[in-house]
């Protein structure tokens, strides 16, 4: 995996640090912008797979961590300002379980189901690859921050995401197989330079919440949002892909998620959220924050994709 190309002064400072240079002070600007989100993505990548030729020691470099903290503060402040606060997790969950239907529903999976073209599907999969090629990894960081039944249930879901012990069944492996079928490079990190800020921001939220114990409630909320909403969306993608003539090998990833996430929804609600909030009721507001922040960033990405496609443009960077 190559070190990404900088998109401004902040990401330039991080890239320079990755190349062995000193960590320069930065002045973060737009918290949702390309420059900050790429910089944050690169800082987090040191905690996942790292970069060839970059010292693994940099993961715990105090100067780089200080810079990362500054970027995180800007990102979290923007999210806290843009996402209404709440602490009624039951109401939040109930809202996620209502499925909007009909030809007027606006959403990426609805569009790909109804009328999307193969080039749009391939772009969607490039965006999604930033997360799915490390599917479940950001949420794995929350495991040691939980205890008792909530921990056991979260691990049950994570175990399923990791293929239940069979490497070929790992969801990241199924995603890579789908990319191959669609003629896309499935190498980890291959598409980072091509995806815009809204794509990086979604995954950065997961890494942020996973790496900060303080945000463990938000991590669980983000995880719950995905597991509760993914099954119907996956079904739409399966049907859209069949309409586009994709083969079964390509469809398998989303096909697997229809059934898997119907179960994960139940395990997350009954096994994770209920016991977690019984043990630590003070986490309710952060769970709601995690759900709403994930929805907020998902909406931003969805609008970016649909807006570009409506204008007949690519949603990827040149």
């Amino acid at each position: 995996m190559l070190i990404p190309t900088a998109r401004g002064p902040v990401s330039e400072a991080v890239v320079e640090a990755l190349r062995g240079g000193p960590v320069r002070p930065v002045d973060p600007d737009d918290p949702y912008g390309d420059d900050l989100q790429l910089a944050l993505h690169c800082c987090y990548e040191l905690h996942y797979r790292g970069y060839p030729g970059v010292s693994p020691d940099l993961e715990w470099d105090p100067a780089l961590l200080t810079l990362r903290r500054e970027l995180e503060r800007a990102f979290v402040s923007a999210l806290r300002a843009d996402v209404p606060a709440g602490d009624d997790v039951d109401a939040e969950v109930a809202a996620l379980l209502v499925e909007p239907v009909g030809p007027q529903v606006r959403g990426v999976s609805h569009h790909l189901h109804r009328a999307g073209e193969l080039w749009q599907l391939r772009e969607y999969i490039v965006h999604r690859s930033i997360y799915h090629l490390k599917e479940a990894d950001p949420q794995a960081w929350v495991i040691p921050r939980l205890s008792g039944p909530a921990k056991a249930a979260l691990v049950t879901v994570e175990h399923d995401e990791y293929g239940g012990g069979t490497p070929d069944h790992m969801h990241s492996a199924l995603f890579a197989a789908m990319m191959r079928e669609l003629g896309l490079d499935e190498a980890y990190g291959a598409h980072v330079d091509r995806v815009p800020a809204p794509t990086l921001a979604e995954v950065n939220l997961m890494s942020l919440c996973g790496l900060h114990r303080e945000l463990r409630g938000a991590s669980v909320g983000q995880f719950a949002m995905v597991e509760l909403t993914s099954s119907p969306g996956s079904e739409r993608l399966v049907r859209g892909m069949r309409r586009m003539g994709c083969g079964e090998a390509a469809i398998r990833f989303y096909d697997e998620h229809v059934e898997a996430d119907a179960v994960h929804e139940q395990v997350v609600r009954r096994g994770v959220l209920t016991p977690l909030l019984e043990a630590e009721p003070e986490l309710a507001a952060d769970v709601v924050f995690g759900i709403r922040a994930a929805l907020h960033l998902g909406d931003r990405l969805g609008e970016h994709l649909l807006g570009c496609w409506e204008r007949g443009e690519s949603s990827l960077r040149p």
Partner: protein
Amino acid sequence: MREPTRMVLTDEGPALVSGPVEIETPDGGVVRSDRPVTALCLCRRSRRWPICDTSHRTKVREGDRPC
């Protein structure tokens, strides 16, 4: 005596069964699920019956929440 298999009946949708299961359907077919938990469709609306696909969920027409 063997531990009984625990099944959870949910109020809104499927029955949850632990462990790998084989489900024999009325036509004599057998559906196998190796998941740690399997959600069995009780409402018969699932397109993947006997496995739940969340088709029991409440639907609202022309919502505007993007997915």
